[in-house]
């Protein structure tokens, strides 16, 4: 099932590549095929969700085949609640991105076939990454995702794309290679303990010597921190986002960067619980710095795409903070945050992408009063923006609050500083909105026409999900909670009990009204 | 031992010639001295076969090859004496001295224990001993050395041998060509043959021969004609000349 899911986009990519190229009709056909493939993948992952037994939790749909026996590498897939959430995110966002990217203007006379093929490749690899339960397989796919993004930025992006692509690649590769060192070390550790194996389950059973564990942890964490991205390793992101097409940015920030935070939970916490605990003070401080720094830098940005990138730095700070607070609430909140951030950032990138494409400039100053001529666009931007600033009632709020509340039980000062992020978030979103959408219509932004039906169609699902999950996040949380529980249990810090006990809210209270 | 102390300084001095001799020839001679000196030391060290080989192969063949090339490229071929790389000499000297000291002080001072001597190994004779090794443990090395030698030959061929692509034109052909050119474009056919052209001798008294083999008039100084000292040219001679230098020319003539 998982194999089929991951293979679908990859096969689709091949198909799209092989389709005839050239004239507009051929390009259109390629787009439709790509979209159809991504819809099929979405269907499959919904099937996955339907088939997932929430009650029993744990890893399901597991597949395990020997791959490279000598290395202890397996072709092992499986999803738990966390992986499932991110798989859903990936397969929801891809069709949206493809649909939204239909009319992207590609530089030179590059063909749409490869553009969409790369997107599908990226989707396939991302699905694989989230499903991998073998470190080696994960690593391979993790690194392999660099290639499609590299091409998506470098080949199809805007100004400065080559530089940004190289920077992206080298930066992330550096992280990946540090992780490689740890992956290698893990092999040695596991081999010395008996048969080499990269299976998550086998690695969890290992008793790793303290220093070694820290060493290995650092390698993994470095890769994920760059990917996530965590301050001060984030500087590749604004450039990459600035030069990429909106669709690429969405896939990169909303999906692939999640691999970083996902990896922290799946690998750092699960395999190196002691080292994770050892590192958590530093990581949490860095995360808080990310939150505030990213928000401030976003406020100071003039380029809309850089701004969104910085907001993501800030949001990723929250996610990482939640993960390393080691409470069920914050961990589950972080996972939910990954999903929500994916949605809201996707909406932001896509809607600003439309603006930027029509205006031909990404500078905030190049807009003004757009609301007057493009009310729908402006409304979508506002909702997306509000979700980014975690307005209650929109999806990210719940997750952000869970993260903060969980963190608060761990460290009051850090949680307090992190909370500053919500004020700053209001600033960066509203300043951007104010300067682009409100005020008298600037003549130069009169070219920005309102969203057309296709664009609305692409964006509507994200908005519906953002609002829906704002009020009804519990179904998703039900999927996430058991996995989050297990992770926290694994780290072994445990949820701190309330300082002052209250009579535990009895069931009567909950169902009182009904 | 005495031999060593006599020969060794000579060797070192000669080898220094490689460093300081201005001319390649001098350096080569220095090297030759070194080699001969070494040959002596081989002999002293119970290596009569090597002694011989050193003299024959090294000094005899290899050094000759060197000298030959030195002559080929010109004894004085201009390698300027000005050092082009700054600091190269100093660096080389420093590193060299360091390296030499390291080896000599670090390695050569060690105690190797008593010298076993080659009496036993040479009991059936030095050459036999060597042969035993060469056709024993080192037979493969010995055999594959052939590859080395073939390679060397092949290399020399590739780099130095110039396969003729076109047959060499005979003088007759050249002359005919000249006249054809004259007929067609009026290009001056050049001076008439000087003495000795197409003749068996280069001496002034042998007249130049015309393409048909007859003596070219005026190719011998008049004074000699007057004295009757002109070499007689017979048809045989012409045939000889044809045979030697212009077979095809002759064929064409016949046509």
């Amino acid at each position, binding site marked *: 099932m998982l194999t089929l899911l991951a293979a679908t986009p990859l096969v689709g990519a091949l198909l799209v590549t092989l389709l005839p190229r050239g004239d507009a009709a051929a390009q259109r056909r390629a787009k439709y095929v790509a979209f159809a493939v991504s819809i099929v993948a979405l269907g499959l992952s919904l099937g996955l969700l339907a088939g997932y037994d929430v009650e029993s939790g744990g890893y399901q749909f597991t597949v395990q085949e020997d791959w490279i026996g000598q290395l202890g590498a397996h072709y092992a897939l499986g999803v738990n609640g966390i992986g499932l959430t991110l798989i859903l995110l990936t397969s929801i966002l891809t069709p949206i991105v493809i649909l939204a990217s239909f009319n992207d203007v590609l530089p030179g006379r590059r063909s749409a076939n490869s553009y969409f093929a790369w997107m599908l490749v990226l989707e396939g690899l991302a699905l694989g990454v989230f499903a991998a339960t073998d470190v080696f397989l994960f690593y391979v796919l993790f690194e392999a995702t660099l290639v499609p993004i590299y091409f998506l930025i470098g080949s199809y992006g805007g100004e400065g794309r080559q530089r940004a692509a190289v*920077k992206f690649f080298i*930066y992330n590769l550096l992280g990946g290679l540090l992780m490689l060192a740890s992956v290698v070390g893990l092999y040695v550790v596991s081999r010395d303990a008996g048969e080499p194996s990269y299976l998550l389950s086998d690695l969890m059973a290992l008793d790793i010597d303290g220093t070694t564990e820290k060493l290995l942890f650092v390698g993994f964490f470095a890769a994920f921190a760059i990917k996530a991205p965590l301050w001060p390793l984030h*500087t*590749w992101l*604004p*450039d990459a986002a600035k030069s990429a097409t909106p669709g690429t940015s969405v896939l990169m920030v909303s999906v692939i960067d999640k691999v970083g935070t996902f990896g922290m939970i799946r690998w750092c916490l699960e395999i190196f619980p002691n080292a994770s605990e050892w590192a958590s003070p530093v990581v949490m401080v860095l995360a808080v710095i990310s939150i505030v*720094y990213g928000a*401030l830098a976003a*406020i*100071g940005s003039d380029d809309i795409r850089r701004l969104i990138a*910085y907001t993501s730095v800030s949001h990723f700070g929250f996610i990482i903070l939640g993960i390393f607070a080691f*409470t*069920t*609430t914050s961990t589950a909140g972080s996972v939910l945050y990954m999903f929500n951030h994916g949605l809201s950032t996707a909406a932001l990138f896509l809607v600003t992408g439309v603006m930027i494409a029509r205006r031909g400039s990404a500078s905030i100053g190049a807009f003004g*009063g757009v*609301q007057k001529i493009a009310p729908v666009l402006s409304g979508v931007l506002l909702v997306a923006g509000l979700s980014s600033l975690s307005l*209650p*009632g929109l999806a990210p709020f719940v997750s952000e*609050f*869970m993260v903060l*509340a*969980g963190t*608060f*039980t761990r460290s009051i000062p850090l949680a307090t500083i992190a909370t500053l992020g919500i*004020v700053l978030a209001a*600033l960066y979103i*509203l300043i951007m909105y*104010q300067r682009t959408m*409100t*005020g008298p*219509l600037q003549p130069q932004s009169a070219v920005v026409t309102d969203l057309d039906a296709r664009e609305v169609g692409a964006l509507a699902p994200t908005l519906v999900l953002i609002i829906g999950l704002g009020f*009804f*996040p*519990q179904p998703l*949380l039900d999927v*996430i*909670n058991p996995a*989050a*529980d297990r992770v*926290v249990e694994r780290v072994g810090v445990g949820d701190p*009990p*309330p*300082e*002052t*006990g*209250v009579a535990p*809210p009895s069931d009567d*209270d*909950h169902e*009182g*009204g*009904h | 031992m005495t031999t060593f102390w006599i020969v060794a300084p000579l060797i070192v001095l000669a080898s220094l010639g490689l460093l300081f001799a201005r001319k390649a020839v001098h350096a080569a001679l220095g090297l030759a001295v070194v080699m001969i000196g070494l040959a002596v030391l081989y002999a002293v060290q119970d290596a009569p076969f090597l002694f011989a080989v050193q003299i024959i192969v090294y000094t005899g063949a290899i050094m000759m090859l060197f000298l030959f090339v030195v002559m080929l490229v010109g004894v004085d071929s201009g390698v300027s004496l000005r050092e082009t*790389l700054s600091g*190269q000499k100093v*660096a*080389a000297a420093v*590193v060299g001295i360091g*390296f030499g000291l390291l*080896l000599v002080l*670090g390695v050569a001072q060690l105690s190797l224990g008593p010298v076993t001597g080659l009496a036993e190994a040479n009991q059936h004779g030095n050459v036999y001993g060597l042969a035993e090794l060469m056709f024993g443990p080192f037979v493969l090395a010995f055999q594959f050395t052939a590859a080395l030698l073939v390679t060397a030959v092949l290399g020399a061929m590739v780099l130095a041998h110039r396969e003729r692509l076109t047959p060499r034109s005979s003088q007759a052909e050249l002359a005919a060509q000249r006249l054809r050119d004259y007929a067609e474009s009026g290009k001056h056919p050049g001076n008439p043959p000087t003495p000795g052209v197409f003749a068996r001798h280069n001496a002034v008294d042998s007249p130049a021969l015309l393409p048909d083999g007859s003596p070219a008039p005026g190719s011998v100084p008049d004074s000699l004609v007057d004295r009757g000292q002109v070499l007689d040219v017979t048809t045989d001679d012409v045939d000889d000349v044809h045979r030697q230098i212009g077979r095809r020319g002759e064929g064409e003539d016949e046509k």
Partner: protein
Amino acid sequence: MFDYVWLLVAFPAAGAALLLTWGKESDRFGHLIATVASALSFVWGLVLFIGLLGRDGDDRSITDSLFTWFSSGAFHVEMSLVFDPLSALFVLLITGVGTLIHVYSIGYMEHDERRRRFFAFLNLFIAAMLTLVLAGDYLVLFLGWEGVGLASYLLIGFWQHKPSAAAAAKKAFVVNRVGDLGMALALMLMFAQFGTTSIQLVNDSVGSASAGVATALGLLLLLGACGKSAQVPLQSWLLDAMEGPTPVSALIHAATMVTAGVYLVVRSSGVYDASEVARTAVVVVGLVTLLVGAYIGCAKDDIKKALAGSTMSQIGYMMLAAGLGPYGYAFAIFHLITHGFFKANMFLGAGSVMHGMNDDVDMRHYGALRKAMPVTFATFGLGYLAIIGFPGFSGFFSKDKIIEAALGENLWVGLAALLGAGVTAFYMTRLMAMTFFGEKRWRDEVHPHESPRVMTIPLIVLAAASVLGGLLLLGDWITDWLEPVVGHTEHHELAVPPIVISLIVTAVVAVGVAVGWFTYGARAVDDTAPTKVSPFTRAGRADLYGDAINDVVVVRPTMALARGLEWFDRRGLDAFAVGVGSRLGELAQGLRRSQTGYVRTYALGIFIGALVLTLALMAVTF
């Protein structure tokens, strides 16, 4: 019946959703849908209220848990609504005043092409506000809290083409967010401390926590309240918020939303009961705002800003009362309700005036409008009497009670409150005089006229409420009604009987009115504001430099920091990362030069390598 409390929220919410997603064809009747939705809510609220009346005093709190909002680990949040005496009052106030304002807006916004959206936002506001007051969990309250903030943002900035409106909207939101910081932290603290954010549970168990926790909670909640209720130091947004259409100012920035802070404090009575420090802080905040608002109200020529200053001041009273603890909670709510009536009335009246004056807000351009707009004048006059505390009018009772309680708590606090009453009388008199009395100072092109029926009827209804609001105090009904929720304790015995205090208050008010009248009513008013004024006036006009202080202390440093950081990120951090790369590149170029092309250099390299390698290996033995 009480299972359907959620319908209260659902009606306006559905209205908002409908109007926002429905296309242009709904432009014609969209406002009606919204009004009906609001009215339905009101009617349903009334029904529920009556149902509540029919219950015993101890049985008047109904919790309606809709669904689990989210639950993870120890954190469990129910989407629960609580209908109890306190929220019931608010429901009626909100839906009642709200519906009237909907009606009023039909006329007021008639010519606005985006009227449908305006009504959608109004409905959104009603829904959010109801969520706020009905919430059974602090987090749900926070949902409403932010919801009203959003509605406020949208409505202040409704005329987005005006940069000032857009800026004001943003400012309101951001300043509120600062308050939310406190709220959010309070919520986290609750979770960490009690493992729940249920209002009921937190307030029940806060007593058993340490005093520090209660104080911290109280102060954090107060910060939130300050933001929403425009209390010092987060007051600055309210005056700018007058950029919004006047009905908005009436509904949100006078009657309902801005009082949410008071509601929060009262709702968290358990917390404040447990912390003396927190209560004192509330009192101080209320007192300061009371005076600051009044001061500003005296200096403004913009009718809406003058009213806004007044609003701040009046909410200061409420906060003050709430800060008195069980002595004052009920009076805070009482004043809140009466204020809701008369201030909404006056704002709508101001709107009516503006409507007649081509949206001119400068009172110096008014004068003698009493004849041109008789209904407006009459209703406004009744509101005026209510706010200055003219005996018998609702404001008289509610303000009197607060001053009384304040005096009972602390003489100086009481005196300051008393002073505030005088100043209120002064600036309201000034406002009345400048607007309705004196010589007409209109511009020539302006032809003041009375507003249409659809606008005046709400005015009349609200005027009536302003007059009659005091009835709630009859037989201490309001304190008894609220007692199950907030408890009530009579304040300390005063040195003088209450009637004496009432007289003193009335006297002070009279002085205020007199000063106001003789300054502005009896004398001609310049139609342009005098520029040579005392520093005090100048300070008042500049909102006591609140914006300037914010600007210097917060805004500019933040923006500078933001720009600096952004610059640092590109030129510092990123340049460092890139710089490492380019340094490597330079290093590479340098190393590349080692490749000279001279074979002897290479040989030297080999020789050196040999030497070093040998040396290194042999060093092991030496």
